[in-house]
């Protein structure tokens, strides 16, 4: 496609702003992306065409960032160069900004491959301009309904906008995702045999109770979490597809997940079985890109969890785990993980309702906090903060957490002070913010960690993760 004066104007304006932002020490993707799109609304298309080895897209409700980062770690081990929208900047502006950073002033791409996380609602706009070689679809859960209307609409939008030429890498265990591959030859599935948490009956929020193609109630022989499991439809025969990459012999120990694929054991430094799916998605894509199993194993092993996904901080009073919460299924998984540590719990929950958090907080009532209420004896305190501190406190009251353990504190520093004030001998601390509170909390925790004088590797006993 011929590049017009609009393209050059857009590119150079974007590059000038990026350089300026980087020079002043700021992350520069959104603003340059915005300006460039203003000059040339087709800029993503023009930029993406320079990536000769193609574009890999990662989308879905949960696990996009972790999946993209795991794949990046594997590609790094494989010695591949690629463009990457690392900061979770997954809307049109952020994606454009990341591509501009990886494009020279002369308009050539600095890498042959681009790995792009794309927000579900942005997929239609993105795919109108860009045809990905590979598209990973992780899962679909209820998330920020006020932004997307209803889940059905989101799923349909993504499905209809994926180009025919794109090879789909799909979660076999999620019926909403698996249906994308019906009648497609270019679909590759990954899935899980069974985790220690898999059950014959489900108590959780489930999105897909009915067959996405014919509307008959789906029958499950096993639930892994949410609507993920081994399902079939008695109406039209739709069933969980046979995964090409199947994880077996799954277990968790010392903050790591272990699993086997084709009788080879793999390990990642992440907690929660939902992260296994992210590893499998990255695994499947890496295979498709020609990576050797050994490279994949190394890429997964050296991966260091990114900002706010079960990230550990070592404070002078003890260790705290920070993790983002943004929808019922994700929160349910965090609760499961907290209960699984078998310690008494000091919890801080921060709920904001700004646009990036989702303005509607009714999803808090779909989270199974009752499971936490059942563990009330183990809970030492729950500090509630954020613009919706009172709402989360109220939710916990109705879930059976004793009211005298609930602490309302609107200042973030104050909230952390309450958490740290007392610590039982075996107390584990969890800090659970929504999106707009994540980075503020992360900043405070990093400062506290620095003033405690411990770096992560020292606190782990000198074990260097990137061995």
């Amino acid at each position, binding site marked *: 496609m011929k590049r017009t004066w609009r393209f050059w104007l857009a590119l150079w304006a974007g590059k000038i702003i990026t350089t300026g932002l980087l020079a002043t020490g700021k992350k520069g993707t959104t603003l340059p992306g915005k300006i460039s799109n203003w000059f040339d609304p087709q800029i993503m298309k023009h930029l993406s065409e320079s990536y000769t080895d193609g574009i890999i897209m990662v989308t879905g409700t949960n696990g996009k960032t972790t999946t993209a980062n795991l794949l990046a770690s594997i590609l790094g081990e494989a010695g591949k160069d690629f463009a990457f929208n690392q900061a979770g900047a997954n809307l049109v502006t952020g994606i454009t900004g990341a591509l501009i950073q990886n494009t020279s002033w002369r308009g050539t791409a600095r890498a042959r491959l681009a790995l792009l996380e794309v927000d579900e609602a942005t997929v239609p706009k993105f795919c109108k301009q860009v045809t990905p070689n590979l598209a990973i679809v992780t899962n679909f859960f209820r998330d920020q309904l006020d932004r997307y209307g209803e889940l059905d609409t989101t799923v349909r939008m993504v499905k209809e906008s994926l180009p025919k030429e794109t090879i789909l890498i799909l979660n076999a265990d999620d019926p909403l995702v698996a249906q994308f591959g019906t009648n497609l030859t270019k679909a590759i599935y990954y899935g899980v045999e069974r985790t220690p948490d898999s059950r014959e009956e489900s108590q959780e929020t489930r999105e897909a109770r009915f067959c996405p193609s014919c509307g008959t109630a789906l029958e499950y022989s096993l639930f892994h979490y949410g609507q993920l499991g081994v399902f079939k439809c008695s109406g039209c025969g739709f069933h969980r597809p046979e995964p090409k990459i199947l994880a077996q012999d799954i277990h968790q120990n010392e903050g790591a997940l272990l699993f086997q694929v084709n009788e080879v054991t793999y390990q990642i430094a992440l907690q929660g079985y939902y992260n296994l799916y992210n590893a499998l998605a990255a695994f499947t894509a890496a295979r498709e890109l020609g990576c050797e199993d050994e490279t994949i194993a190394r890429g997964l092993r050296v991966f260091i969890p990114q900002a706010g996904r079960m990230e550990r901080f070592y404070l002078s009073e003890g260790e705290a785990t920070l993790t983002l919460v943004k929808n019922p299924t994700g929160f349910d998984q965090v609760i499961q993980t907290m209960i699984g540590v078998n310690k008494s719990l000091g919890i801080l929950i921060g709920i904001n309702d700004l646009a990036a958090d989702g303005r*509607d907080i009714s999803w808090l009532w779909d989270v199974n906090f009752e499971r936490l209420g059942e563990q009330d004896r183990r809970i030492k305190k729950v500090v509630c903060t954020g613009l919706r501190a009172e709402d989360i406190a109220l939710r916990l009251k109705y879930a059976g957490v004793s009211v005298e353990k609930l602490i309302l504190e609107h200042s973030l520093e104050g909230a952390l002070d309450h958490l740290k004030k007392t610590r039982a001998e075996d107390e584990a601390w969890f800090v659970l913010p929504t999106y707009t509170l994540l980075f503020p909390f992360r900043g405070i925790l990093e400062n506290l960690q620095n003033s405690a004088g411990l770096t992560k590797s020292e606190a782990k006993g000198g074990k260097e993760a990137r061995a």
Partner: protein
Amino acid sequence: MNLKICHLYPDLLDLYGDRGNILTLASRCRWRGIEPDIQQASLGEDLDFMSMDILFIGGGSDREQGLLVQDLMRREDELRKAIENGLVVLAICGGYQMLGKYYQMANGERIDGLGILDVWTIAGTKRLIGNVVVELNPTILGVDSQRLKTLVGFENHSGKTHLGEEVSPLGKVIFGNGNNGEDSGEGVRYLNVFGTYLHGPLLPKNPHLADLLLELALKRRGIDTLLMNLDDRLEELAHKVMVKRLLKQA
């Protein structure tokens, strides 16, 4: 003593944390020594509306709503009789629309509702999304004036609902859109039926409405005592913080 609370089609109509409303009714019964008997009714299941105390109908996605209008149509007569008898109903969003006369789609086609409420809904072009504060109409609620005088919640609907002359809204919208974004009315009360667009969920932060439903249900059973007061400091705080914040924005 027990109260029978039926959550209609929770497997179909469960958008927006609807189960919070049931959890709230159940807890507020239990804290007063009343045993809540919760029935989660699925499509096609036997339902005896007359023997229920409180019926809750929530909102669902369009496809799922279509499925169950058909199912409810078969039971329209029994439901109508129970409502005339004083059955307490809380119907939110889709549930509210379904109890009305019809839903008129963008192409002009009308889907029949149950016609129990004198309201009708016309598809709008824009979704009405956001927080809502309603100043309650005191005669509609008939509750003691000591408590909260507003309702607070969140709306997300594209249908615009209009009220017939026989029925009145729950109150006046002072923040947000309400029934149709035009006449500043929100919700409806007819006998002991409460229809509204407020999810959020509605009852946890509006304990005065939750208690009104319980009181009306007990009254229908012939028990005319005042409900025991509960410690609602947290509920009222959550309510007031939100009202204050929204009205400051406005």
